[in-house]
Protein backbone atom coordinates (compact mmCIF):
# COMPACT_ATOMS: atom_id res chain seq x y z
CA UNK A 1 0.00 0.00 0.00
CA UNK A 2 2.83 2.35 0.90
CA UNK A 3 4.61 1.47 -2.30
CA UNK A 4 1.47 2.25 -4.23
CA UNK A 5 1.17 5.56 -2.42
CA UNK A 6 4.66 6.53 -3.37
CA UNK A 7 4.01 5.40 -6.88
CA UNK A 8 0.90 7.52 -7.06
CA UNK A 9 2.77 10.55 -5.75
CA UNK A 10 5.38 10.07 -8.38
CA UNK A 11 2.67 9.90 -10.96
CA UNK A 12 1.11 13.13 -9.73
CA UNK A 13 4.47 14.84 -9.86
CA UNK A 14 5.00 13.36 -13.22
CA UNK A 15 1.72 14.59 -14.67
CA UNK A 16 1.56 18.10 -13.26
CA UNK A 17 5.24 18.72 -13.07
CA UNK A 18 4.74 20.19 -9.63
CA UNK A 19 5.18 18.71 -6.21
CA UNK A 20 2.28 19.04 -3.81
CA UNK A 21 3.35 20.82 -0.64
CA UNK A 22 1.44 18.46 1.56
CA UNK A 23 2.24 15.53 3.74
CA UNK A 24 0.11 12.83 5.14
CA UNK A 25 -0.09 11.31 8.59
CA UNK A 26 1.78 8.09 8.73
CA UNK A 27 -0.34 5.08 7.82
CA UNK A 28 -3.19 7.26 6.66
CA UNK A 29 -4.27 5.17 3.72
CA UNK A 30 -3.84 1.96 5.67
CA UNK A 31 -6.34 3.07 8.22
CA UNK A 32 -8.65 4.94 5.93
CA UNK A 33 -11.03 2.09 4.91
CA UNK A 34 -11.61 1.12 8.53
CA UNK A 35 -12.23 4.69 9.59
CA UNK A 36 -14.63 5.20 6.75
CA UNK A 37 -16.51 2.04 7.67
CA UNK A 38 -16.82 3.13 11.31
CA UNK A 39 -18.12 6.51 10.30
CA UNK A 40 -20.71 5.04 7.96
CA UNK A 41 -21.85 2.63 10.64
CA UNK A 42 -22.18 5.42 13.19
CA UNK A 43 -24.30 7.52 10.85
CA UNK A 44 -26.64 4.61 10.31
CA UNK A 45 -26.64 3.57 13.93
CA UNK A 46 -29.96 3.99 15.63
CA UNK A 47 -29.77 6.11 18.77
CA UNK A 48 -31.93 3.74 20.78
CA UNK A 49 -31.11 1.24 23.48
CA UNK A 50 -33.00 -1.68 24.97
CA UNK A 51 -33.26 -2.75 28.59
CA UNK A 52 -30.50 -5.10 29.64
CA UNK A 53 -31.24 -8.73 28.94
CA UNK A 54 -34.32 -7.90 26.86
CA UNK A 55 -33.54 -10.19 23.95
CA UNK A 56 -32.42 -13.04 26.22
CA UNK A 57 -35.71 -12.97 28.06
CA UNK A 58 -38.03 -12.16 25.15
CA UNK A 59 -38.73 -15.70 23.97
CA UNK A 60 -39.59 -16.79 27.53
CA UNK A 61 -42.01 -13.91 28.03
CA UNK A 62 -43.57 -14.58 24.66
CA UNK A 63 -44.07 -18.24 25.58
CA UNK A 64 -45.78 -17.28 28.85
CA UNK A 65 -48.10 -14.91 27.08
CA UNK A 66 -49.04 -17.47 24.46
CA UNK A 67 -49.75 -20.10 27.11
CA UNK A 68 -51.94 -17.66 29.01
CA UNK A 69 -53.86 -16.74 25.87
CA UNK A 70 -54.26 -20.40 24.98
CA UNK A 71 -55.93 -21.23 28.30
CA UNK A 72 -58.54 -18.48 27.97
CA UNK A 73 -58.88 -18.63 24.24
CA UNK A 74 -61.30 -21.57 24.08
CA UNK A 75 -64.00 -19.34 25.53
CA UNK A 76 -63.18 -16.70 22.97
CA UNK A 77 -63.05 -19.21 20.15
CA UNK A 78 -66.38 -20.73 21.15
CA UNK A 79 -67.95 -17.31 21.37
CA UNK A 80 -66.58 -16.36 17.98
CA UNK A 81 -67.94 -19.57 16.48
CA UNK A 82 -71.46 -19.18 17.78
CA UNK A 83 -71.68 -15.41 17.58
CA UNK A 84 -73.56 -15.40 14.26
CA UNK A 85 -76.00 -17.96 15.58
CA UNK A 86 -76.46 -15.98 18.79
CA UNK A 87 -77.14 -12.85 16.79
CA UNK A 88 -79.72 -14.64 14.65
CA UNK A 89 -81.37 -16.11 17.73
CA UNK A 90 -81.54 -12.66 19.33
CA UNK A 91 -83.17 -11.22 16.19
CA UNK A 92 -85.73 -14.01 16.07
CA UNK A 93 -86.54 -13.69 19.77
CA UNK A 94 -86.88 -9.94 19.43
CA UNK A 95 -89.19 -10.31 16.45
CA UNK A 96 -91.33 -12.83 18.27
CA UNK A 97 -91.47 -10.64 21.37
CA UNK A 98 -92.52 -7.57 19.40
CA UNK A 99 -95.06 -9.51 17.38
CA UNK A 100 -96.51 -11.18 20.46
CA UNK A 101 -96.77 -7.87 22.28
CA UNK A 102 -98.42 -6.23 19.31
CA UNK A 103 -100.86 -9.06 18.87
CA UNK A 104 -101.71 -9.01 22.57
CA UNK A 105 -102.35 -5.29 22.44
CA UNK A 106 -104.60 -5.64 19.41
CA UNK A 107 -106.46 -8.62 20.84
CA UNK A 108 -106.93 -6.95 24.22
CA UNK A 109 -108.45 -3.95 22.51
CA UNK A 110 -110.73 -6.18 20.51
CA UNK A 111 -111.69 -8.22 23.56
CA UNK A 112 -112.48 -5.01 25.39
CA UNK A 113 -114.99 -4.18 22.72
CA UNK A 114 -118.20 -6.12 23.34
CA UNK A 115 -119.91 -7.80 20.40
CA UNK A 116 -123.36 -6.84 19.20
CA UNK A 117 -124.82 -9.97 20.69
CA UNK A 118 -123.24 -9.23 24.03
CA UNK A 119 -124.58 -5.67 24.01
CA UNK A 120 -128.01 -6.95 23.15
CA UNK A 121 -127.90 -9.52 25.94
CA UNK A 122 -126.84 -6.99 28.54
CA UNK A 123 -129.36 -4.41 27.48
CA UNK A 124 -132.02 -7.02 27.40
CA UNK A 125 -131.09 -8.17 30.86
CA UNK A 126 -130.69 -4.84 32.56
CA UNK A 127 -132.66 -2.26 30.64
CA UNK A 128 -136.26 -2.01 29.53
CA UNK A 129 -136.58 1.72 29.04
CA UNK A 130 -133.99 4.41 28.48
CA UNK A 131 -133.50 8.01 27.53
CA UNK A 132 -130.77 7.41 24.98
CA UNK A 133 -129.72 11.08 24.71
CA UNK A 134 -129.23 11.24 28.40
CA UNK A 135 -127.42 7.91 28.37
CA UNK A 136 -124.99 9.00 25.74
CA UNK A 137 -124.35 12.43 27.19
CA UNK A 138 -123.95 10.98 30.66
CA UNK A 139 -121.46 8.38 29.53
CA UNK A 140 -119.48 10.92 27.50
CA UNK A 141 -119.44 13.50 30.27
CA UNK A 142 -118.62 11.07 33.00
CA UNK A 143 -116.14 9.14 30.87
CA UNK A 144 -117.43 5.97 32.40
CA UNK A 145 -116.04 2.59 31.49
CA UNK A 146 -118.86 0.10 31.82
CA UNK A 147 -118.22 -3.59 31.69
CA UNK A 148 -121.73 -4.66 30.63
CA UNK A 149 -120.91 -8.35 30.52
CA UNK A 150 -119.28 -8.82 33.91
CA UNK A 151 -121.20 -6.17 35.74
CA UNK A 152 -118.04 -4.37 36.81
CA UNK A 153 -119.76 -0.99 36.75
CA UNK A 154 -117.81 1.98 37.67
CA UNK A 155 -120.77 4.27 38.26
CA UNK A 156 -123.67 2.98 40.33
CA UNK A 157 -125.64 6.16 39.71
CA UNK A 158 -125.66 5.58 35.98
CA UNK A 159 -126.81 2.02 36.34
CA UNK A 160 -129.55 2.90 38.78
CA UNK A 161 -130.82 5.54 36.38
CA UNK A 162 -130.71 3.21 33.42
CA UNK A 163 -132.59 0.49 35.25
CA UNK A 164 -135.42 2.86 36.03
CA UNK A 165 -135.94 3.57 32.29
CA UNK A 166 -137.23 1.42 29.47
CA UNK A 167 -134.84 0.98 26.60
CA UNK A 168 -135.21 -0.21 23.04
CA UNK A 169 -131.68 -1.56 22.52
CA UNK A 170 -132.11 -2.26 18.81
CA UNK A 171 -132.67 1.45 18.13
CA UNK A 172 -129.46 2.29 19.95
CA UNK A 173 -127.50 -0.28 18.01
CA UNK A 174 -128.93 0.86 14.68
CA UNK A 175 -128.69 4.55 15.40
CA UNK A 176 -125.18 4.64 16.77
CA UNK A 177 -123.97 1.87 14.50
CA UNK A 178 -122.08 0.12 17.24
CA UNK A 179 -120.19 -2.53 15.32
Amino acid sequence: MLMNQQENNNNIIGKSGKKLPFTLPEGYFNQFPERLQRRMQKEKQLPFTVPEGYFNEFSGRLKNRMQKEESTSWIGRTYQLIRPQLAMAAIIIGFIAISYTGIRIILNDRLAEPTITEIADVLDTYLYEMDDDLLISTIVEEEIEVDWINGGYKSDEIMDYLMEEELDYTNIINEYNIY
Partner: protein
Amino acid sequence: MHQINVKEAPGILTVQKPETLTELSDKELVRQFNVENSRNNAFTLIVKKYQEKLYWHIRKILISHDDTDDALQNTFIKAFEALDSFREDSSLYTWLYRIATNESLTLLKKRRTKYYVPMSYVQSHLENTLMSDPHFNGDEAQMKLQQAIIKLPEKQRLVFNMKYFDEMKYDDMAEILNTSVGSLKASYHHAVKKIEQMLNGD
Protein backbone atom coordinates in the same frame (compact mmCIF):
# COMPACT_ATOMS: atom_id res chain seq x y z
CA MET B 1 -25.72 -30.15 25.23
CA HIS B 2 -26.59 -30.57 21.58
CA GLN B 3 -30.06 -31.46 20.45
CA ILE B 4 -30.21 -34.21 17.89
CA ASN B 5 -32.59 -33.69 15.01
CA VAL B 6 -34.18 -36.93 13.97
CA LYS B 7 -35.51 -37.22 10.47
CA GLU B 8 -37.89 -40.00 9.68
CA ALA B 9 -38.13 -41.40 6.18
CA PRO B 10 -40.19 -44.39 5.12
CA GLY B 11 -38.49 -47.45 6.62
CA ILE B 12 -35.34 -45.51 7.50
CA LEU B 13 -34.42 -43.61 10.62
CA THR B 14 -31.57 -41.20 10.17
CA VAL B 15 -29.90 -38.90 12.62
CA GLN B 16 -28.96 -35.44 11.54
CA LYS B 17 -25.93 -33.70 12.95
CA PRO B 18 -26.85 -30.91 15.33
CA GLU B 19 -26.89 -27.52 13.65
CA THR B 20 -26.25 -24.15 15.14
CA LEU B 21 -28.91 -21.50 15.08
CA THR B 22 -27.31 -19.63 12.21
CA GLU B 23 -26.86 -22.74 10.11
CA LEU B 24 -30.50 -23.78 10.25
CA SER B 25 -32.12 -22.48 7.09
CA ASP B 26 -35.53 -20.88 7.03
CA LYS B 27 -36.81 -23.75 4.97
CA GLU B 28 -35.67 -26.24 7.58
CA LEU B 29 -37.12 -24.16 10.38
CA VAL B 30 -40.51 -24.04 8.65
CA ARG B 31 -40.32 -27.77 7.99
CA GLN B 32 -39.61 -28.50 11.63
CA PHE B 33 -42.39 -26.15 12.67
CA ASN B 34 -44.86 -28.19 10.63
CA VAL B 35 -43.92 -31.34 12.52
CA GLU B 36 -45.93 -31.59 15.72
CA ASN B 37 -43.08 -32.82 17.93
CA SER B 38 -40.64 -30.14 16.89
CA ARG B 39 -43.04 -27.23 16.47
CA ASN B 40 -42.31 -25.41 19.72
CA ASN B 41 -38.57 -25.82 19.41
CA ALA B 42 -38.61 -24.59 15.80
CA PHE B 43 -40.67 -21.59 16.79
CA THR B 44 -38.26 -20.69 19.57
CA LEU B 45 -35.41 -20.85 17.08
CA ILE B 46 -37.29 -18.59 14.67
CA VAL B 47 -37.93 -16.09 17.46
CA LYS B 48 -34.29 -16.05 18.49
CA LYS B 49 -33.14 -15.75 14.90
CA TYR B 50 -35.29 -12.76 13.96
CA GLN B 51 -36.22 -11.00 17.18
CA GLU B 52 -33.52 -8.36 16.99
CA LYS B 53 -33.95 -7.51 13.34
CA LEU B 54 -37.69 -7.21 13.69
CA TYR B 55 -37.34 -5.30 16.96
CA TRP B 56 -35.27 -2.55 15.40
CA HIS B 57 -37.53 -2.33 12.39
CA ILE B 58 -40.54 -1.83 14.66
CA ARG B 59 -38.67 0.51 16.98
CA LYS B 60 -37.93 2.87 14.10
CA ILE B 61 -41.66 3.13 13.47
CA LEU B 62 -42.99 3.28 17.00
CA ILE B 63 -40.01 4.90 18.78
CA SER B 64 -41.15 3.73 22.24
CA HIS B 65 -39.58 0.54 23.60
CA ASP B 66 -42.81 -0.51 25.34
CA ASP B 67 -44.90 -0.11 22.19
CA THR B 68 -42.23 -1.96 20.26
CA ASP B 69 -42.28 -4.80 22.76
CA ASP B 70 -46.06 -5.12 22.32
CA ALA B 71 -45.89 -5.04 18.55
CA LEU B 72 -43.01 -7.54 18.48
CA GLN B 73 -44.93 -10.01 20.61
CA ASN B 74 -48.03 -9.55 18.47
CA THR B 75 -45.91 -10.14 15.37
CA PHE B 76 -44.60 -13.48 16.57
CA ILE B 77 -47.97 -14.61 17.87
CA LYS B 78 -49.53 -13.90 14.49
CA ALA B 79 -46.62 -15.66 12.81
CA PHE B 80 -47.14 -18.71 15.02
CA GLU B 81 -50.82 -18.86 14.09
CA ALA B 82 -50.21 -18.44 10.38
CA LEU B 83 -46.92 -20.27 9.84
CA ASP B 84 -48.52 -23.59 8.98
CA SER B 85 -50.14 -21.91 5.99
CA PHE B 86 -46.96 -20.09 4.94
CA ARG B 87 -46.56 -20.89 1.28
CA GLU B 88 -42.86 -19.98 1.00
CA ASP B 89 -43.50 -17.79 -2.04
CA SER B 90 -41.39 -15.22 -0.20
CA SER B 91 -38.55 -15.68 2.26
CA LEU B 92 -39.44 -16.25 5.89
CA TYR B 93 -37.76 -13.01 6.87
CA THR B 94 -39.70 -11.01 4.29
CA TRP B 95 -42.90 -12.59 5.52
CA LEU B 96 -42.12 -11.79 9.16
CA TYR B 97 -41.04 -8.31 8.20
CA ARG B 98 -44.38 -7.72 6.52
CA ILE B 99 -46.29 -8.86 9.62
CA ALA B 100 -44.13 -6.63 11.81
CA THR B 101 -44.76 -3.63 9.55
CA ASN B 102 -48.51 -4.19 9.59
CA GLU B 103 -48.55 -4.65 13.36
CA SER B 104 -46.67 -1.39 13.84
CA LEU B 105 -48.96 0.54 11.52
CA THR B 106 -52.00 -1.04 13.18
CA LEU B 107 -50.79 0.20 16.55
CA LEU B 108 -50.42 3.71 15.17
CA LYS B 109 -53.86 3.53 13.56
CA LYS B 110 -55.42 2.33 16.81
CA ARG B 111 -54.04 5.35 18.54
CA ARG B 112 -55.62 7.59 15.91
CA THR B 113 -59.03 5.92 15.84
CA LYS B 114 -59.21 5.51 19.60
CA TYR B 115 -58.93 9.21 20.17
CA TYR B 116 -60.32 10.34 16.79
CA VAL B 117 -57.26 12.49 16.25
CA PRO B 118 -55.50 13.44 13.02
CA MET B 119 -52.16 12.05 11.98
CA SER B 120 -50.42 15.22 13.18
CA TYR B 121 -51.36 14.29 16.73
CA VAL B 122 -49.71 10.91 16.31
CA GLN B 123 -46.60 12.64 15.01
CA SER B 124 -46.58 14.93 18.05
CA HIS B 125 -46.98 11.92 20.28
CA LEU B 126 -44.04 10.18 18.62
CA GLU B 127 -41.91 13.31 18.96
CA ASN B 128 -42.75 13.61 22.64
CA THR B 129 -41.98 9.92 23.10
CA LEU B 130 -38.65 10.42 21.36
CA MET B 131 -37.66 13.38 23.50
CA SER B 132 -38.64 11.68 26.74
CA ASP B 133 -37.41 8.21 25.81
CA PRO B 134 -35.12 6.84 28.57
CA HIS B 135 -33.69 4.45 25.99
CA PHE B 136 -32.42 7.17 23.68
CA ASN B 137 -28.65 7.56 23.72
CA GLY B 138 -27.95 9.54 20.57
CA ASP B 139 -26.38 12.94 20.19
CA GLU B 140 -28.03 16.14 19.06
CA ALA B 141 -27.59 15.39 15.39
CA GLN B 142 -29.21 12.00 15.73
CA MET B 143 -32.07 13.53 17.68
CA LYS B 144 -32.65 16.06 14.90
CA LEU B 145 -32.55 13.32 12.28
CA GLN B 146 -35.09 11.21 14.17
CA GLN B 147 -37.33 14.24 14.64
CA ALA B 148 -37.18 14.96 10.92
CA ILE B 149 -38.01 11.34 10.09
CA ILE B 150 -41.04 11.42 12.40
CA LYS B 151 -42.39 14.41 10.51
CA LEU B 152 -42.47 12.47 7.25
CA PRO B 153 -45.74 11.00 5.97
CA GLU B 154 -46.19 7.42 7.07
CA LYS B 155 -45.17 5.73 3.83
CA GLN B 156 -42.11 7.92 3.32
CA ARG B 157 -41.04 7.21 6.90
CA LEU B 158 -41.27 3.50 6.30
CA VAL B 159 -39.41 3.62 3.01
CA PHE B 160 -36.69 5.90 4.35
CA ASN B 161 -36.05 3.74 7.41
CA MET B 162 -35.95 0.55 5.38
CA LYS B 163 -33.67 2.00 2.72
CA TYR B 164 -31.37 4.17 4.78
CA PHE B 165 -30.96 2.19 7.99
CA ASP B 166 -31.69 -1.35 6.85
CA GLU B 167 -30.19 -0.88 3.37
CA MET B 168 -32.92 -3.01 1.96
CA LYS B 169 -33.20 -3.59 -1.77
CA TYR B 170 -36.14 -1.99 -3.53
CA ASP B 171 -37.33 -5.38 -4.77
CA ASP B 172 -37.53 -6.70 -1.22
CA MET B 173 -39.25 -3.53 -0.05
CA ALA B 174 -41.77 -3.83 -2.87
CA GLU B 175 -42.59 -7.34 -1.72
CA ILE B 176 -42.99 -6.32 1.90
CA LEU B 177 -45.00 -3.18 1.30
CA ASN B 178 -46.87 -4.57 -1.70
CA THR B 179 -46.10 -1.58 -3.86
CA SER B 180 -44.10 -0.89 -7.01
CA VAL B 181 -40.35 -0.25 -7.10
CA GLY B 182 -40.94 3.04 -8.91
CA SER B 183 -43.27 4.25 -6.20
CA LEU B 184 -40.74 3.30 -3.54
CA LYS B 185 -37.94 5.14 -5.29
CA ALA B 186 -40.09 8.23 -5.56
CA SER B 187 -41.03 7.99 -1.88
CA TYR B 188 -37.41 7.65 -0.87
CA HIS B 189 -36.36 10.55 -3.04
CA HIS B 190 -39.04 12.82 -1.55
CA ALA B 191 -38.20 11.66 1.95
CA VAL B 192 -34.54 12.50 1.55
CA LYS B 193 -35.36 15.92 0.15
CA LYS B 194 -37.71 16.72 3.00
CA ILE B 195 -35.24 15.60 5.63
CA GLU B 196 -32.53 17.69 4.05
CA GLN B 197 -34.81 20.73 4.07
CA MET B 198 -35.78 20.16 7.69
CA LEU B 199 -32.20 19.70 8.82
CA ASN B 200 -30.91 22.64 6.81
CA GLY B 201 -33.79 24.77 7.96
CA ASP B 202 -32.50 24.50 11.51
